[in-house]
């Protein structure tokens, strides 16, 4: 097992618009390590959503390789792809996309429906995840009775349901007010710090991006620039007791809790 959650090699995506070809992704390369928290920024139409869709196996690249947990998904048939989406990917959408006629817990249970988990296990896990995102006691509430921020928390819990290799979030804070925006970013950052969840989020918002550890700039389907985010610094501080950590520490020398994936991300710049 490599330490990469995602490896993208020479991926292009060409849309045909009448006679014109749109190169939404142009020979793009990207590695994301397990436990990384990355942001993708770029102007509208630069290919951010297309990139997330290709990673999330809901869109096929025209060419190139997409390895998720070392599995090349680019050539897989639909009968295999849905399993990758179910088991390896967690989607978070700008509009939350909760099923309005299901309550919070049922929404979180959805991705587990066709798995080997029993109904009881599913319910227990959904309740646990809702507690993790700060919605203990709101399990029975339907989306329309939850605030926008709360709905996005449910969506994040749903994305975590099958313990995916990567969380893909397309402008998860795009529809939220300042307060909720900060809460959601903190939630994602905490998930990354405490549980080592690999997260790639797309945002137009520099402040949101700044909370990640790695900011990728996309332009015309290519990554043109990469920056460190503030989150990286936090990786040398124990999220539980705030004690200073050494890069090699597996456990916090102060509180003894496991601190995973805190190695400094390897920053690669693209020409």
């Amino acid at each position, binding site marked *: 097992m490599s330490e990469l959650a995602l490896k993208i090699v020479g991926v292009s995506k060409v849309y045909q618009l009448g006679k014109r070809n749109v190169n939404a992704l142009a020979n793009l390369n990207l590695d994301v390590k397990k436990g990384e928290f990355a942001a993708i920024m770029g102007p509208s139409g630069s290919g951010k959503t297309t990139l997330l869709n290709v990673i999330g196996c809901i869109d096929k690249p025209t060419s190139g390789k997409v390895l998720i947990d070392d599995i090349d998904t680019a050539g897989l048939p639909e009968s295999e792809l*849905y399993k990758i989406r179910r088991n390896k990917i967690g*989607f978070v959408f700008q509009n939350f996309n909760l099923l309005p*006629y299901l309550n919070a817990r049922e929404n979180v249970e959805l991705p587990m429906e066709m798995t080997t988990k029993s109904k009881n296990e599913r319910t227990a896990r959904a309740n646990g995840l809702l507690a993790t995102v700060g919605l203990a006691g709101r399990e029975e509430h339907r989306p329309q009775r939850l605030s926008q921020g709360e709905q996005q928390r449910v969506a994040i819990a749903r994305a975590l349901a099958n313990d995916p290799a990567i969380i893909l979030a397309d402008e998860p804070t795009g529809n939220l007010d300042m307060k909720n925006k900060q809460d959601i970013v903190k939630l994602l950052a905490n998930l990354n710090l405490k549980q080592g969840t690999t997260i790639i989020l797309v945002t137009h918002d520099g402040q949101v991006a700044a909370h990640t550890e790695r900011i990728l700039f996309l332009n015309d389907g290519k990554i043109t620039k990469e920056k460190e985010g503030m989150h990286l610094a936090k990786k040398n501080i124990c999220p539980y007791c705030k004690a200073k950590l050494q890069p090699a520490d597996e456990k916090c020398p102060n509180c003894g809790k496991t601190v995973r994936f805190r190695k400094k991300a390897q920053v690669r710049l693209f020409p």
Partner: protein
Amino acid sequence: MENLFRDAICLGIVSRAFRNLSRRKIRALLVVIALGFSMAIMIAVPAGIAANQSATQNLTGNLSNTLTQTEATINQTLTQIDCGLASSAPSGFGFSGNFTPGQFGGGGRGDFNFTPGQFGGGSGIPGEFGGGALGGGGSTPMNESLYTDINSSISGVVAVAPILTVSEGHNVTVTFGDRSFTRLVADYIIEGVPLNSSIIDNYPILPANITAGRNLQAGESGVVILSENNSAYFGVGVGDRVTILGQSFEVVGIHGTSGASDRATLYMSLSDAQALTGNTGEITSLEVFADTTDDVTAVSSAISALHAELDVVTAQERLSQLQQQQTNYDAQLANAQATLNQTQSQAFEEIIVAVAATSLIVLFVMLYTVRERTKEIGTLKAIGFSNRTVMSQFMLEGILLSLLAGVVGVAIGSIAAPFLSSVLLPTVGNSLGAGFRFTGGLASTTAVTVNPELMLIGFGVSVMLGALGSVYPAWRASKTRPAEAMRYE
């Protein structure tokens, strides 16, 4: 397949299907009602056909029965010649005054009194011809012995049946200004017939239609058969004793003949009637039977020559009317059969339309539902639902919808089947020629009923149609491309 089954029974899918239906209550309700009606049609139309079929069968059976009887009556009465004293003979015999369902008899005109048919597979079934109920004849008594020569001296005469007919009733006085009239209103009519086996076994002088008990038998005395009206008038039935003009008789049978005069006529032996009414040796009419129909004219002129005082009437006019009637029935049969054929092809078309409508309703509603929920479907696929699961989900919703509709359809169908099939199908009853309707005892109604078997079939078909109509929308849903679905707002 096994997985599909597992998917389908998976509680998540089932409960979501229910919730989605209940989420759009009005829509579900409208669809269920619309579907319910199509299904009701599918149930009601076969039920209507079955009813029409059995009505036509009844009609055919009854008409041919009647024709046989008519023929028998014609043959029997062709040779019959009715003689009574000219001064008092009402109008001889012929057709019943009022063609009240079923019976020829009495004197008077042939008056067809038909009204339009009634639905429900209702078909006018002609009633019986009262074989022996040839009314007519005079009511003025004459001496029986004066006419024994008819039998002995006229060649071609095979039998003579002396008859005594006496009306019993009460007087009613009607006053117009300074004048008043007294009129006898008959309570019952006593008809004495000779109970010789040579006559009653061979010639139709006793009523043919015995509805209870038995007919009179040769050599009997002290017994009567009553009409239904008599039975009500005297308040007695078969096996009871009845007192007539102070004398007691045993009621052995009830006759159902309903010709105008026969409705009031009770029958007993000639000698009983003569003794009872004080007309010993007297009769009011003679029924003369010729050997063959060819003899009738010669015999009747011989009777007139021998006894100028007698009014002699033959069966010739009656024959032509019976033949006319036969032609009528043939036309009705042909008509009924034509209607049935038309009914079946029409029913076939209607069922096709109902089946198509049902599938189309499900198809369009489910297509609309799928379109409306594109984003939801995209989301489900993005979070890892397989095509098959999505397909099962929407198939199940369509089937559930038609299941509900099936229940409603069966309910509407079984309650409204008579109404629906009357709207949807031509009816045998209606088709019996414009303006023809048999009323009273003639109308035989075959009710449109929906049996449990038909309900079950209707229900099964509705679920199948629901599944059929859902296949394409569900397939469309399963093929939704999540990336596109997400762009679609």
